[in-house]
């Protein structure tokens, strides 16, 4: 246990120093080389003692990412900088199997969220899309994102400023109800609402 903590501490210090170092360099062959490839001492054994824990997720891999117009692609996610609003809850909206069409009987729930955003101009929203456990995990991540986007499109159509609504997807990775069968699946194919204070 002590050994593990020491290894963790060393790892944290190394990671912190990495952030201060240069972010890699191009080799003569045109390939990409990372700072730690020059420094073998940074290679801690990948044993169970050195598992990567959340605090060891630091820094970006490629410093600047640009789209085809040359514009820098930025993150600027609400989750990174804003405080979540406590005490305000909204009902999840539910979807049909393999569908990202907002069902007509779910629209009243989205209307309620829209009314809240209109009444609370300092609140911004993340719509979180989810899927049931069936099918490919990777496809379900994309499907969940499109569910969140369908909800967002409805809110934007209501007149909410587009930059007040971001989307996120957990695919099938964060079910509301564990288990199997349509009774469970229908509760997991959903969009959830998370408010942030700006």
């Amino acid at each position, binding site marked *: 246990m002590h050994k593990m903590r020491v290894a963790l501490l060393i*790892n944290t210090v190394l*990671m912190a120093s*990495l952030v201060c170092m240069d972010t890699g360099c*191009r080799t003569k062959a045109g*390939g*990409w080389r990372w700072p*730690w490839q020059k420094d073998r001492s*940074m*290679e*801690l*054994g*990948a*044993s*169970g003692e*050195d*598992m*990567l*824990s*959340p605090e*060891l*997720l*630091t820094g*970006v*891999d*490629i*410093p*600047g*990412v*640009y*789209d*085809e117009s040359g514009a820098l*692609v*930025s*993150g*600027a*996610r609400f*989750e*990174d900088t804003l405080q979540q609003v406590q005490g305000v809850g909204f009902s999840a909206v539910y979807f049909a199997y*393999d569908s990202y069409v907002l069902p007509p009987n779910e629209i009243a729930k989205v209307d309620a969220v829209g009314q809240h955003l209109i009444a609370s101009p300092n609140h911004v929203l*993340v719509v979180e899309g989810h899927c049931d456990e069936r*099918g*490919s*995990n*990777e*496809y379900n*991540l*994309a499907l969940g*994102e*499109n569910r969140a*986007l369908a909800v967002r499109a409805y809110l934007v159509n209501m007149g909410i400023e587009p930059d007040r609504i*971001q*989307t*996120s*997807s*957990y*695919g099938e*990775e*964060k*079910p509301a109800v*564990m288990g199997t069968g349509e009774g469970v699946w229908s509760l997991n194919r959903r969009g959830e609402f998370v408010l942030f204070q700006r």
Partner: protein
Amino acid sequence: MLKMLSVTSFVCLVVMSALFCDASNPPVITVRKSGANKAAVSLTALKADGVYGRLFVQTLQNDLKLSGWFEVLPSGRSGSITVQGVVTDAGGGVQSNLRVTWPGKAFNWARNSAGRQEVRNQAHKLADEMVRLIAGEVGIASTKIVFVNRRGANNADIYMCDADGGSMMQLTRDNTAAVGPRWAPNGRDIFYTNFVKGYPTICRLINLGRSRRMLAPFKGLNTGAAVSPDGGRIALILSYQGNPELYIMEVASGRLSRMTKTAHGVEASPCWSPDGRSIVYVSDVSRRPNLYLVDVASRQSRRLTFRNTENVNPDWSAKGGIVYATKGGGGWQIAVMDPARGESSMTYVTKDGGYEHPSWAANGRHIVCNRASTLYILDTMGDPSVRLINIAGNWMSPDWSER
């Protein structure tokens, strides 16, 4: 007697295999029953001593069986291939002094290795060398498999093991969702999607998990990273411009190129062709998930699959075939196809349902996939499937390294 090496049939097999790989011929996917066409190896004259010596021999014996090209004879029987010599415990590891002989040929193998993992690695290397020199095929014993252990809602981590299921290692300790780990061609880096930040970001686990960095923490969805065979480009799924689309990121410049424009569909699971000119991916523009192929230079896509209701998780072998999971009347099965001939070349690898998320071994013959919360290795040439992991857990989404 049938199982004894028949030199002519073995030569035929090798010649046929060579034909399959010939660039002038279209790649051929073979799913056939050839369990009897194995070269017989005798380990009778291989003397092992000590704990590590026995570990070495057990590992070698298992690797030769798993390779699919050899039959290891029971002790006392002599075969046309022999491994002779001694493996002795020395300095917390083994010292090996071996000679491998087969009709008309031989090679020597003398190594020292310290520690349990090094002993196993040395046995893996010897097995791969025997596959390469005797069978003329790509050995897979030294390759690794990365996968997810999903414990519950938003609670998973990345693990890795050797091709024989041994030396399992936990690489992350996040206890948050983790999706789709994939090896980079260097066999050292792993890309996957994690939720440590509370939203999906692509991460690179560097040098077998010794450190990691975020690749894409943009708005919306960031997932599906697959590194091109030359290592210079990464195919990924992003939604920062609208809905999920397939992009290519150039590693050196950070420049993105958008490959798809499907306002009413989503893309997922990109995988490069061996020549780096095309990407096979999943799209649901046809309303159900199917496989599509995009030509990177022209950005023109075409649909590859029309059969069954869902076709997902494609993996393109360096030997030419695409393996994928397909959902038909019998549930989820594993199928392979030759992309040049299209879906008419589709062949099922499995006989019943419940299999998902296939990934090729470097030999283009074996496939790892998940079924009922554990991982199995399938053989497209007819050997029985092998359960890879016997530890309790919810093991899924395996990816097999190229080296």
